[in-house]
């Protein structure tokens, strides 16, 4: 028992060092395009986790992630934008004088984005979380659209449909995106393993029983929703910084479906599943781009291959997962060292001659 614990701690430490070395190596040596995709993977991990906290662990069917992301993205865009560039970005309608001279460094702007997104989550959650199931999904979807329309029309703050560019690209450095992602993973894992995390799971399993066990449903649902909104806001802020530009069209509610795919593929209620799926989905979406370009096979142009075809494949994949792999990669379980070593122990016994003999005699 104690030995196993020691082994797990050593393995975790070794893995942490390997990850850090890999990040360091990738940051300096890999092609800028690859680094950008890896950063996007890390950012999608953050937002996927925030959505899994709400949908997978607490069992609330919410589709508001794009809205929370947008709030985080715009607070980084507005407040982290260097003062001397503001007049050139806001060339149609000048920036609102109240905020025109407020500049925040990246970290405060990022945190502000998280807090504002959390606040929005509270304001939308307080009335809506009394609803159950589908109603919540519809209401959060509506919320996400309201945010987008607000961003389009509040020109003196958001620069409207023109969007904001020239955002300092901090998140292009892997230490930022992966650093924040690692912190978020640790915080959410600690939260889930705490008494509050267990209460969230109880609500997911059976809200009537949870309430009968003294758990205040409304308070805990709002709590999960606000924490999820906060981390989605942080993820959105990194997203804005990575792209260097934001505009309202990026935050269509269809963006939320990327994260829905991530949590369904990874497993609703699995942190490690979400991490794995974030990399698969983000990488996969990049690969799918090839289907949007014309393809000529043996002098014959395939008519299927045109803009939009990747989304057809994407939708089919989503349906296949929902139909055949409903539990996703990890289900509700987590990767752990115990599982890892047990897996190898099993393989070992299967292939060792002694075990094979025993099987044969049975």
């Amino acid at each position, binding site marked *: 028992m104690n030995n196993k614990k020691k082994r797990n701690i050593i393995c975790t430490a070794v893995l942490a060092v390997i990850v850090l070395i890999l990040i360091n190596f990738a940051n300096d040596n890999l092609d800028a395009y690859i680094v950008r995709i890896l950063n996007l993977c890390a950012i999608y991990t953050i937002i996927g986790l925030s959505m899994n906290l709400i949908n997978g662990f607490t069992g609330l069917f919410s589709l508001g992630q794009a809205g929370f992301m947008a709030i985080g993205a715009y607070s980084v865009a507005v407040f982290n934008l260097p003062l001397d560039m503001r007049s050139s970005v806001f060339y149609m309608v000048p920036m609102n004088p109240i905020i025109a001279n407020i500049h925040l460094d990246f970290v405060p702007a990022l945190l502000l984005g998280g807090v504002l997104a959390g606040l929005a989550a509270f304001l939308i959650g307080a009335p809506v979380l009394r609803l159950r199931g589908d109603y919540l999904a519809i209401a959060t979807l509506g919320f996400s659209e309201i945010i987008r329309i607000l961003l389009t029309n509040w020109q003196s703050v958001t620069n409207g449909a023109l969007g904001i560019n020239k955002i300092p690209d901090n998140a292009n450095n892997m230490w930022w995106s992966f650093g924040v992602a690692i912190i978020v993973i640790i*915080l959410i894992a*600690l*939260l889930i393993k*705490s*008494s*509050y995390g*267990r*209460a969230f*799971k*109880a609500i997911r*399993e*059976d809200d*009537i*029983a*949870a*309430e*009968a*066990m*003294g*758990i*205040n*449903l409304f308070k805990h649902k709002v*709590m999960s929703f606000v*924490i999820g909104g906060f981390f989605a806001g942080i993820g959105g802020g990194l997203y804005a910084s990575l792209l260097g530009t934001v505009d309202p069209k990026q935050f269509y509610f269809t963006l939320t479906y990327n994260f829905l795919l991530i949590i369904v593929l990874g497993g609703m209620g699995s942190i490690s599943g979400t991490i794995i799926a974030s990399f698969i989905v983000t990488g996969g979406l990049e690969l799918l781009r090839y289907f949007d370009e014309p393809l000529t096979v043996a002098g014959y142009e395939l008519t299927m291959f045109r803009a939009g075809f990747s989304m057809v494949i994407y939708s089919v994949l989503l349906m296949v997962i929902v139909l055949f792999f409903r539990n996703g990669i990890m289900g*509700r379980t987590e990767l752990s060292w115990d599982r890892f070593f047990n897996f190898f122990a099993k393989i070992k016994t299967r292939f060792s001659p002694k075990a094979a003999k025993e099987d044969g005699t049975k």
Partner: protein
Amino acid sequence: MSIKDPAIDKVIDKNVVLRTENMTMQFGGVVAVDNLHLTIREHQIVALIGPNGAGKTTAFNMITGVYTPSSGKIFLRGEDITGMSPDKITRKGCARTFQNIRLFKDLTVFENIIIAKHFSMKSNVFSATLRLPSAIREEKRMREESEQLLERMGLADAKNDIASSLPYGKQRHLEIARALATNPSLLLLDEPAAGMNPQETEDLTASIMQIRKDFDLTVFLIEHHMDLVMEISDRIYVLDFGQTIGKGSPDEIQNNQRVVEAYLGVDDDAEN
């Protein structure tokens, strides 16, 4: 003895754990429970019986806050709890089980128990997540209490099993254990022996008596197994179509003409 009257009143009041006054529940035109008066005293085992559809579970749901009574009042140790939310009522010391078992199916036996201790946690979500010393202390206390309870309820071996993988009888047992984990003074059991064979029912009877003694409880239960009801109840209430058609000791109920009619007088019921 001039102080006699108020003093005795107080003693009686303190003795009464649960009291309902004119508790009524109407669903549209249907009166599911009509003017139910209950008085349950400290350390009693009280049973609520009646044919199917008599309104027993509805009465339970009103007491535990799932439904708000259409009219009437409910008092828990003298405090008006009418219309309070279920979680608040549980925190006031009234825990329940469900007719169709409602465990947290995909969680372990241990998690099922410790979740019922969550409301006793004073640390907020930040100190719990960041594992501040106060939260660690509370977590440790909750773990120890849960382990003890599992030990006491004979579920320690199944600690890490998934709740839904337990055999049926054990699931019922776990649900009672989970209710006990909230440290109640009044325990409401909704058909605890449903689906159990005679042997299991007998074990359950013994176990309810034992629990009452060990945890110093008052028990209010709905049950169809008459052997169990007659054996352990101090007092019985009989409902039929929402009406209270009898109340009293097991002997009185067995000799109550209206009760006998409700149970035996109709052919359909005799077959059941």
